[in-house]
């Protein structure tokens, strides 16, 4: 990371931004406090890795508990219903993926495991899965209120 002073923010604005967009810029304020400039995507990635790591710790701790709360497992809430051995396998896989994610500064390896292992969207809440809702409603598992042709849209705000 390249280091700048507070006055560089006006005198070397472009250089500070370029450094921030690259490996990062350290800007030392007049009172000595150092501010870091990095791409927002990197910050987002690191925060996500932090959240996943917290969930991973909860998942690991759950292996020693008799009862597991879905809320405690956060990102892995859906695994609360799994038997202990299956959770242990998931924890090993997530642990490897988190180690890789930390070295890459990118949560993608963990997200890939989540995508593969987590249940489909309609099992989390069918209301948020259009295909599942369409199937339910098309199969007549609801009370019909109107039978006429669907009306045309009217704009609300334009």
């Amino acid at each position, binding site marked *: 990371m390249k280091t700048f002073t507070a006055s560089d923010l006006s005198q070397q604005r472009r250089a500070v931004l370029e450094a921030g967009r690259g490996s990062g810029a350290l800007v030392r304020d007049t009172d000595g406090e150092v501010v870091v400039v990095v791409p927002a995507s990197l910050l987002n990635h690191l925060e996500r890795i932090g959240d996943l790591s917290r969930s991973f710790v909860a998942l690991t701790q759950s292996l020693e508990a008799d009862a597991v709360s879905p809320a405690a497992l956060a990102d892995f809430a859906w695994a609360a219903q799994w038997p202990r051995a299956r959770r242990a396998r998931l924890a090993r896989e997530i642990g490897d993926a988190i180690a890789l994610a930390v070295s890459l500064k990118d949560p993608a390896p963990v997200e890939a495991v989540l995508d593969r292992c987590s249940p489909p969207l309609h099992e989390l809440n069918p209301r948020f899965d259009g295909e599942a809702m369409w199937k339910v409603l098309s199969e007549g598992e609801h009370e019909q209120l109107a039978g006429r*042709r669907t009306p045309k849209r009217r704009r609300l705000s334009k």
Partner: protein
Amino acid sequence: MIVRKVEAVDLYRFDLMQRTPDPPPWVVEVEDFIFRHAWYWANQGTERAFLLAEDDNGELIGVSACELASDGVAYLPAVLVVYEQRRQGYARQLLDETLDRAELLAPGGTAFWLVHEDNAVMRRLSEETGALATGRTEDAYLRFELAF
């Protein structure tokens, strides 16, 4: 108000959203989903649009989504104005913008969405779009439907 697709970098903003105090069940459901499973929607393909509304200062106003449920049929699983921004008329604009995106997913087709029968504001707005309540689920959600 600007409505745009949610990007990965926006996900952390949802953690900062104030949850609705004493919320009705339909708000709980959408807020839960946004807090806990937004990453599902953020991995959007061409058949899904996860949208974020913000003001000129970048303050979050709301979140909505639409997706292709079947050929020519778009589904709107959520239209939410965040707690601090309610009662300012944003829901009307957000629903309209979401229907615009839904029309891109299902041009010439239809759209449907569910509104809890006690959600008076969204029921009224839904009726104003021309949508018709064509069904009712066992847990008191009305299905609104309209054609593009």
